Structure formats: structure tokens, C-alpha cells
């Protein structure tokens, strides 16, 4: 399974990166490929290119603010392949989040 995700929180110093780590760890456990773009106080890192997004089975947006480049996910949204959650959900319950993503 291929997953792409974006994490972002209001201050962008801690939760953005914890959510990234939690999702990456859970995917590693399950043997999934994941690429996580972070939009935090260090700007946009690990930016997702359109072709990478197109190839993904599921998109996880663990965001508590409006993110840059949301339009990149429009097609996935239309296809019901985008899971929108809070960064805290990804940090606290990465297993549940991945379970939900699988079902999309």
C-alpha cells in the first residue's frame, strides 16, 4: 500500500513532526510505503509532487490549519481517498488512523 500524508499544526514546532513520526512508524510496522510532507515552522519539507500523490492509494491529511497546495489532492478527494484527521489523532492513535485509511 502506498500512502502520502501532510501534517501541520498551528505553531508548527512539535505536533507536526510527531504526527509525521507516528504515521511513518505505523506504516513501517505494516510494511506500507509512506511519504509525509510537513508544513511547519521550518516551512514545507519533503514536498509531495503531483505524480507521487497520483500514485498513492490513500492520502492522509493530519492538519489543524489550512495547508498550502491543497489543490494537489482534489482528484483524490473526489475519489473519496482522502482521510482528514487532527494531528493529535495521528500521534495518539496511529493504528486506528491507518485502519481507517485502509478502508477508504
Amino acid at each position: 500500500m502506498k500512502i502520502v500524508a501532510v501534517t501541520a499544526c498551528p505553531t508548527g514546532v512539535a505536533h507536526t513532526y510527531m504526527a509525521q513520526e507516528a504515521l511513518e512508524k505505523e506504516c513501517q510496522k505494516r510494511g506500507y510505503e509512506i511519504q509525509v510532507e510537513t508544513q511547519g515552522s521550518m516551512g514545507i519539507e519533503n514536498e509531495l509532487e503531483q505524480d507521487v500523490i497520483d500514485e498513492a492509494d490513500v492520502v492522509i491529511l493530519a492538519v489543524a490549519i489550512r495547508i498550502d497546495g491543497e489543490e494537489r489532492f482534489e482528484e483524490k478527494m473526489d475519489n473519496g481517498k482522502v482521510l482528514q484527521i487532527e494531528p493529535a489523532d495521528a500521534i495518539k492513535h496511529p493504528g486506528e488512523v491507518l485502519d481507517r485509511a485502509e478502508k477508504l
Partner: protein
Amino acid sequence: MWISLKDVINKKMIFLQQNFATRDEVLHVLIDSALQNGLISEQKPFLQAVLDREANVPTAIGYQIAIPHGKSDAVKQPFIGFLQAKQDFKWTEGYEEEVKLVFLIGVPKENEQNIHLKFISRLSKKLLDDDFRTKLLESTDVEQVYQLLNSIY
């Protein structure tokens, strides 16, 4: 690189085996110490930034950890303060989450020192590591915690 990172964590900002049971007491101790150690220019605006962030969404994120943080002009340089409580306590009234480890993060509003932010983000990620967290929960030695927090690069 490591020379500037050392500035982010100050031994005087590490408090172990503390007998506090409320968020406000813990914030008070850490912010008071931040002022005394010249990390912030004044308490009020920084405390306000931290409380505003808490009001948005409480920063207790499971794992017995809270990461209160604030971006403010009152912050002179990015820093992390750490407090380990003796007992778990409820971080925010009305929420279930209990914490024992508190990391207070301060970041200047205009921040060009990415290296510090990088360190803070690395540390945040490291908190999801069970072994690392266990060591932080069990340690009673400031020097050991200091080394541990600085060992993540």
C-alpha cells in the same frame, strides 16, 4: 552544528521529581526559570502565547506527555524546558489526558535559526520512542537527562 544545539537545552531548565499537580503550577515554574536564565525577556506575553495555544487544543498528546509551546517576541532564543512530575496529573480540566513529562518550548516570533527548530522537531519525534520515554520517566539525575536530551543527533 552541535555547539548551537546545546543552547536549546539548559541544565537549569530541567526539573525532576517535582511535586506539582496542575498545569498552571508547572508552567509557572518553567516560565519563571526561563526568565531567570535569560531565555525570555518577560513572562506575561510568553505565558499568554502558551495559554492561547492550549486553549486552541490542549498539548497533552498521550504517552504521559504534554508539550506546551508558544511563539512570542518575548522569547530571546529557542529553548526547551523539561519537568518530570512525581505523579501523573490531569493536564487540562475537562480532558482525560494525564501527564508526567512536560516539555515547554519557546520560539521567537521571527525565527531564522532553523537549526534550533530542527532540534525541537527531532526531539518531538524521539518522544514516540518507548525506550527514550522510559528513561525520561525513570531518571532522577539532571545530568543524565541532559545527556539524554542532547543525544538525539
